[in-house]
């Protein structure tokens, strides 16, 4: 090697070393540098757009020119809450979200409990894959498939008729508000589809949370005289609450914001998501769309506060 090449190599090497030791010494700076891309994304793309949305909701639309007037006003919010139709939409969406969350929790708990604490390793793997498999399918395909399943000529109706349970279906569909001409055009059907869609999001955090309950704690509870039911209520459920809370956040917020399922399956009533879609699209009323979007945010904030108050995050 020529002396020039050696010199070049050393210089390059020492530059690299200089840079690395610079970062080693100023490791906070290095950390900031690493975090810069995600922070930029979080700050501008996510928080920034959220803030822009919030800002929009404080503007109003001029009814004559159909353009947005960039003047801060509460007129849009007033419009949102004064019209009974709008309040109906909010309550309807909220009601559906609560119902879906409760139903998902009730269905998910036994399954998650079995998966976490009683299943053999092979069965556990099988169940985990089984729970996650629907998530690998297209969302739209699943929704339309359910519309076909729930239709009057659909397979669910056929099964129930064959085994003679169609009076049950008739009775369910005759219920006011949630019933309808067929499952595919009733809130009941919509509810079923929502629960189906979000169930994996409830099962997985719940199973993870239940799995983290140490066996020795359950044994300690039994050792101290608690019957299995008591152990379940006083030890297992409180320790599984973080998982339940996490799962319920998914089901609650996903239902609040969804606009595809209500438009494909179910009764004609509007949901928040659909309103947002419509207002920002055809109606061009961005402020109202923004105002509608703020509602789920506030609802989730209230929900999280309630959950925290009830001790859902105590065991974390």
């Amino acid at each position: 090697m020529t002396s020039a090449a050696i010199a070049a190599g050393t210089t390059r090497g020492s530059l690299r070393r200089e840079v690395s030791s610079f970062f080693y010494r100023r490791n906070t700076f290095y950390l900031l540098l690493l975090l810069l891309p995600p922070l930029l994304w979080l700050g501008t793309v996510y928080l920034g757009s959220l803030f822009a949305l919030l800002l929009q909701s404080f503007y109003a639309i001029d009814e004559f020119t159909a353009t947005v007037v960039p003047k801060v006003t509460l007129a849009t919010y007033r419009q949102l809450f004064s019209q009974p139709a709008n309040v109906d939409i909010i309550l309807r969406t909220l009601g559906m979200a609560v119902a879906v969350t409760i139903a998902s929790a009730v269905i998910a708990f036994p399954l998650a409990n079995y998966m976490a604490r009683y299943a053999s390793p092979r069965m556990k793997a099988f169940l985990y894959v089984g729970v996650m498999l629907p998530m690998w399918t297209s969302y739209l395909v699943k929704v339309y498939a359910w519309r076909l399943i729930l239709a009057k000529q659909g397979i669910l109706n056929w099964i129930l008729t064959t085994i003679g349970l169609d009076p049950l279906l008739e009775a369910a569909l005759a219920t006011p508000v949630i019933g309808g001409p067929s499952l595919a055009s009733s809130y009941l059907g919509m509810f079923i589809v929502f629960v189906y869609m979000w169930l994996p999001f409830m099962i997985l955090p719940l199973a993870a949370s239940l799995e983290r309950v140490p066996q020795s704690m359950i044994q300690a509870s039994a050792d101290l005289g608690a019957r299995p039911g008591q152990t379940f209520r006083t030890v297992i459920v409180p320790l599984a609450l973080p998982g339940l809370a996490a799962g319920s956040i998914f089901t609650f917020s996903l239902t609040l914001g969804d606009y595809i399922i209500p438009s494909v399956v179910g009764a004609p009533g509007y949901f928040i998501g659909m309103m947002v879609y419509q207002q920002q699209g055809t109606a061009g009323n961005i402020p109202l769309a923004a105002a509608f979007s703020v509602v789920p945010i506030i609802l989730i904030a209230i929900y999280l506060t309630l959950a925290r108050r009830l001790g859902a995050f105590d065991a974390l």
Partner: protein
Amino acid sequence: MAAAIEFQQVSRRFGSVKAVDEVSLAIAPGEFFALLGPSGSGKTTCLRLIAGFEQPSSGHVLLDGADVTGVPPYERNVNTVFQDYALFPHMSVVDNVAYGLRVRGVAGDERRKRAEEMLALVQLEGLGERSPLQLSGGQKQRVALARALINRPAVLLLDEPLGALDLKLREAMQIELKNLQRQLKITFVYVTHDQGEALSMADRVAVFDRGRIEQLDTPRGLYMRPRTAFVARFVGGANVIEGDLAHRLSGAARAFAIRAESMALDGTGNTAGDGVVSCAATVIDVQYHGASSRWQVRTDDGSILAVVRPESGSSPVNYTIGSKVLVSWTAGQMVALEDT
């Protein structure tokens, strides 16, 4: 009076592995009984059989004379202090301790009062409102103890409770536990792999190896008269001399044990007086322990013996690694071992 705990030919199989192999024992009421053995020897499984977390594959477990096969843990008058304490993180310390009363339907005020008394007994007054997550290891251990004692069980099981504590704390806790047991007069069954703990605390010790009891005796009995090579080595770290060397030194073709502190390094060779056995060896290692030193020597046929020599300062030692020494002991100190 019926034994507090009795095992009648109890076995516990996991597939083809016998974790507990035909174990029989009887523990008297009010006794401090230790189950001693290395990991995997079956002592913890025996504890779990008493508590009710395991059922025997064969044989019977009796508590106070009654067969408890099939009886779940919440119906046995037995409580356990777990190795990882198993405190409930979502309850305060006082609620943890009061748990045993709560599940039996004792009213809130009453159980709170009794829980506070229990905390005072284990010297943790005033810490009732803390969360278990804020306690040190020693404090958690006391809470676990208080929680297990609140139901005033007939038997308290302790599964290596002092393993996670540092030496000083462990020694202090050993004395405290022993005092507590004497004060409460409850039967304690203590699982440990530390022979020092078992010897210092227990009234009787069962030494376990591979699912069987090698010897069940008082601490003194185990130390002075080990029955098998395993017990001799495990309890007290005695030397076990087998084979040809044993034959040469003792005249019998049987293994024998000789405790390290019964041996002397400086046999002069001509102390061929009656009853003195000696053996030539080379020093290979020394460990200084303050009050004494532990010497490792290798005999001519390759056996490694340990000699413990008190450092009383009377005779300065001039041996180093590689020195040739003559280890000797009196014949009466040799303990003949059973063939296993």
